[in-house]
């Protein structure tokens, strides 16, 4: 029996990056998705959107290169690529809500079998919580990919029949990339597409809170 591999956060990001079509306009959320920009496969160009008014965001600024008027949605000083543009936050969200982004990749606490997403608030957590741009992005992106660990630290499934966490948007998720699998959300329900090296579909199903369809030909997750 082969060793069971769980993907690292970087590997999840790398796998998700393979989902981006060349030339796509893309918004990356907090957490794992934010790592994707550094893991684009060779030959693929993506134009990154930031909800504070940047299209064509580049890599993080190096030490000494920081300009604090040029930050991403996480306050990190960044750069822009040639052909970038700046605009105000209402126009930035005209882009998110209006279906102009080809792909958005968000983190998730839970995804339901109908593609509902919960990613902004943990029940019982301290503090006010905060929505930020997640609800606009989830409501409007042409394609929404969620990157997250397959289970919580306690081992509970994060892919569930019904979300119990506060929702971000209904029926919005197209695909889920985790440390164990790639799962698509279809109208008929979930469909397993790939598993991490060493895992069987049955083993993944046991760690998943909702049934998924298993394809005739199950692929192994590509890690590069």
């Amino acid at each position, binding site marked *: 029996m082969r060793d069971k591999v769980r993907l690292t956060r970087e590997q999840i990001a790398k796998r998700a990056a393979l989902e981006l079509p*060349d*030339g796509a*306009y893309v918004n990356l959320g907090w957490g794992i998705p934010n790592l994707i920009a550094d893991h684009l496969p060779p*030959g*693929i*160009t993506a*134009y990154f*959107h930031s909800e504070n008014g940047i*299209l*064509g965001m*580049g*890599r993080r*600024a190096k030490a000494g*290169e920081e*300009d604090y008027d*040029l930050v991403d949605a996480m306050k990190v000083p960044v*750069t*822009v*690529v*040639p*052909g*970038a*543009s*700046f*605009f105000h936050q209402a126009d930035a*969200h*005209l*882009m998110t*809500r*209006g*279906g*102009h*982004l080809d792909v958005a990749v968000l983190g998730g606490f839970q995804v339901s079998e109908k593609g509902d997403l919960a990613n902004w608030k943990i029940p019982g957590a301290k503090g006010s919580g905060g929505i930020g741009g997640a609800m606009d992005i989830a*409501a*409007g992106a042409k394609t929404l990919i969620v990157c997250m660990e397959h289970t919580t630290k306690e081992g509970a499934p994060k892919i569930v029949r019904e979300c119990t966490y506060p929702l971000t948007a209904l029926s919005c998720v197209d695909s889920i990339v985790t440390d164990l699998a790639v799962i698509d959300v279809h109208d008929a329900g979930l469909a397993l597409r790939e598993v991490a090296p060493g895992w069987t579909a049955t083993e993944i199903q046991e760690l998943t809170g909702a049934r998924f369809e298993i394809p005739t030909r199950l692929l192994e997750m590509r890690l590069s």
Partner: protein
Amino acid sequence: MNVNIRRLNRGQLFERRMKHKIYRDVDAIVADVPDGARIMFGGFGGAGFPNNLIQALARRGTKGIVAISNNCGTHDGELGLLFKLDRIRHVIASFPGPHATHFQERFAAGSVTLELVPQGILCERMRAAAAGLLGFYSPVGVGTEVAAGKEERLIDGRRGILEMPIHADFAFIKAQKADELGNLTYRLAAQNFNPIMATAAKTTIVEVEEIVPVGSIDPQSVMTPAIFVHRIVQAKGVRYAG
């Protein structure tokens, strides 16, 4: 510009993407516009009209068009050509215009229908489509012909009518410059409806006076970001002087 510009070593890929947007001629760029298409046309007061695209569409022969435009042309000029050739069946406009002779004849004869919309509401309904909104309440036109058939509601003591988004299959727009990715600039008052329509249609087709290399438009001067632009053609300016 004190902006850090990332050096891309993906020249070829950029170019491949660019090639998807840039067309060699105006006939090719409208070749797939089907009969019955809903099309937004930019321009106002003679400025910012996509006259080359309009003429190419006339040559193509697309008919049954639903046009969204502030006005309905000036004699044979601007949209006038498409009315003259009976290619437009319905128009959503704010000010068809006394010189829109081909439209006015057909409107009088009943062969073209018109939805008359206040100019700012025309903008706002297109913007609602662009911004993913489903409708809005506006005080404009309350108690007038424009309110006919629309839901009215009292909000915070003010009367408002429900206005719905205007979507389109295509936007035909005119800009001054495009870079090879599709970032646009407009000149002076030739912006008018063009930047709004660019955001509101499924496919935005732009004719520009000049195509410039990526990176040559200051990111702070971009008026329409490339995300909204799908097809670009460089075309010699044609202005209808009527």
